[in-house]
């Protein structure tokens, strides 16, 4: 007699994939979410216009930089086109005292933190490794070894906890609790350092936000090769909250980031946000995306890019044409200033690089610097 068949209940979401948050849909219509909508209720039209302005400046900056590279004025450029909502939105939700560890494509975050175009282009023009003073903007140098900055962010956040524990606060009278943000991408999410960072952050309850921009492509390798589930799903495995948002929806990004930072400041540990977006440009100017992705994919993704969606919403909310016209004029002027700032960057002195290696005197470096100086002077004497 055959055994009676039992019905196995297959859970609809066996891995606990977080729901995707969207507050402004592809048609620029508001969506309500009981938990997250309150986090953007205070944002009026004027504020959103300012956010839109920063996104437009970022887009123009990015286009100018791509052009400058094509003209041979930059060694390389990593475009952020299409990721403006994820970057400007998350930066908008931060406070100045929060410390940010970027990867190398976070131009919208950098611009939001007040970094000048020239400072930002210094790395890519080959005149400096970091064009700004990180402490002035609480924005660390770009990191090009993927994911290497993520444990730094975690350690910095552990230090913020120690400041409180050991009585080393910068300002003991302030209630402000800074947080740390670590930006990385879908490709980086595979690196072991991300895993170790999440373990350490959880074990030490570090006030750090892991902000992943999933732009679907790690140079030529699609996201499906990095993970079978959205990256936000992984947070549960480390014992903290993971949020998954439409990264091209400015409101969802702001709401999720504000929610996460509020939680982190309250001492409720790390949070992971995965902003699902799309890299409309090449990985870098050395890349040729036509070799690995189709025009159809690019066209359909372009329809859902973030700036057009926000413009549509703002127009529906009554933002006058004059705002957009004035902004276009400003953006054009800004583009010219980006070009000028790149071309006006001073070339560095090679000799200065001897002084950067160590913070205290190192006899070998001193000896080599001395030798080089004498070597150079030898040519001058001959002339």
């Amino acid at each position: 007699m055959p055994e009676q068949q039992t019905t196995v209940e297959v859970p609809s979401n066996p891995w606990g994939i977080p729901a995707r948050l969207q507050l402004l849909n592809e048609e620029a219509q508001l969506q309500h979410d009981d938990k997250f909508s309150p986090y953007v209720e205070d944002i009026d039209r004027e504020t959103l216009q300012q956010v839109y302005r920063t996104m437009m400046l970022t887009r123009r900056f990015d286009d100018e930089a791509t052009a400058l590279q094509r003209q041979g004025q930059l060694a390389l450029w990593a475009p952020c086109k299409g990721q403006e909502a994820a970057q400007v939105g998350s930066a908008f939700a931060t406070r100045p005292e929060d410390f940010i560890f970027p990867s190398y494509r976070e131009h919208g975050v950098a611009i939001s933190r007040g970094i000048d175009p020239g400072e930002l282009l210094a790395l890519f023009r080959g005149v400096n490794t970091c064009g700004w003073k990180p402490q002035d903007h609480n924005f660390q140098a770009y990191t090009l070894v993927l994911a290497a900055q993520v444990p730094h962010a975690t350690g910095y956040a552990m230090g913020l906890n120690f400041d409180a524990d050991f009585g080393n606060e910068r300002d003991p009278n302030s209630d402000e609790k800074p947080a740390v943000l670590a930006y990385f991408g879908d490709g980086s999410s595979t690196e072991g350092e991300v895993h170790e960072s999440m373990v350490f952050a959880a074990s030490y309850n570090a006030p750090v936000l892991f902000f992943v921009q999933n732009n679907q492509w790690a140079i030529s390798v699609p996201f499906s090769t990095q993970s079978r589930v959205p990256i936000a799903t992984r947070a549960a495995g480390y014992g903290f909250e993971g949020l998954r948002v439409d990264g091209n929806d400015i409101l969802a990004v702001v709401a999720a980031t504000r929610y996460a930072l509020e939680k982190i400041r309250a001492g409720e540990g790390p949070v992971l946000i995965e902003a699902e977006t799309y890299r409309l440009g090449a990985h870098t100017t050395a890349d040729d995306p036509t070799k690995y992705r189709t025009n159809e994919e690019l066209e359909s993704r372009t329809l859902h890019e973030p700036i057009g969606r926000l413009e549509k919403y703002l127009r529906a909310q009554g933002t006058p044409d004059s705002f957009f016209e004035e902004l276009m004029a400003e953006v054009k002027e800004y583009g010219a200033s980006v070009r000028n700032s790149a071309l006006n960057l001073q070339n560095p002195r090679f000799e200065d690089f001897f002084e950067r290696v160590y913070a205290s005197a190192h006899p070998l470096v001193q000896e080599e610097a001395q030798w080089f100086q004498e070597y150079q002077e030898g040519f001058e004497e001959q002339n």
Partner: protein
Amino acid sequence: MTTEMNEAPAVETLTMAKAINRALRDAMSESNKVVLMGEDIGKLGGVFRVTEGLSAEFGEKRVMDSPLGEAGIIGTSIGLAMKGYRPVPEIQFDGFVFPAFNQITSQLSKMHGRTGKNFEVPVTIRIPFGGVIGSVEHHSESPEALFAHTPGLRVVTASSPHDAYWGLRKSIESPDPVIFFEPKRRYWMKGAVNFGHTNFDPFTAEVVRAGKDLTIATYGALVPVALAAAQAAQEGGYSVEVIDLRSISPLDVETVAESVNKTGRLVIAHEAPTFGGMGGELSASITERCFYSLEAPVLRVGGFHMPYPVAKVEEEYVPGIDRILEAIERSFTY
């Protein structure tokens, strides 16, 4: 300072492990920015008990039993240093440092320069190194040349409890990252520690035995071996000078050059494989500086070009008194 001297004896006899423990304790007492991190360094006191008692004294937050991940230990140490702390992470064994190699060589070493000198990263990484403790693979290696080859790092060793105490104290005080290699087979060796030696410079070499016919330059666990070889050579009629290099980066070439200009002969000994090792670097530097003083080519005594072997044959691999004596004899054939 004089009152402190009166309270505690200025000189104490300690094992190297205890001297290192004391250095950590004194550094932590002086500044609450000094924090320790590593695998099993808390309640257990580390696999060599070097951090014994520190967790009880300073609490679990300043003596962190970290999760098991070397890249995480060094990576978070970098972040802590950027926040103003002076982390002293421990890598449990030399052969376990490689998961953290990226963080050390591409991040820690470059952070000061690549941020335009805006961040100092005073991280001191303690690593027990070297062999002859009868252990299993990956527990007896000497990877110092890999780090010395990386600009931005300082690499320091010690051969005595005194040098271990002060070497570590000064490494922690350094604004630069330091890899502090502790010769693990000497952890239980006793010696006098002079706590008044506050102007100790860990980045210099020291002549530990004077001689006039030949110079041996070495460091770490081989210093006592070289001294024994020098003593044996004395009986054969050779007067041998022994230099403890102490610092691998910077390398105190001046002290060695001064000695070689006097003796005319140099033997360099280390446990690490000879090919691509510190001996080659020092040999080239001395040849450049002392060419007309040299009576013989600079000779190297080191590990062979093979992974560190199993315990039953490790003493064939690591230079001992006889292999150093053979090199001394060979030098005098020129």
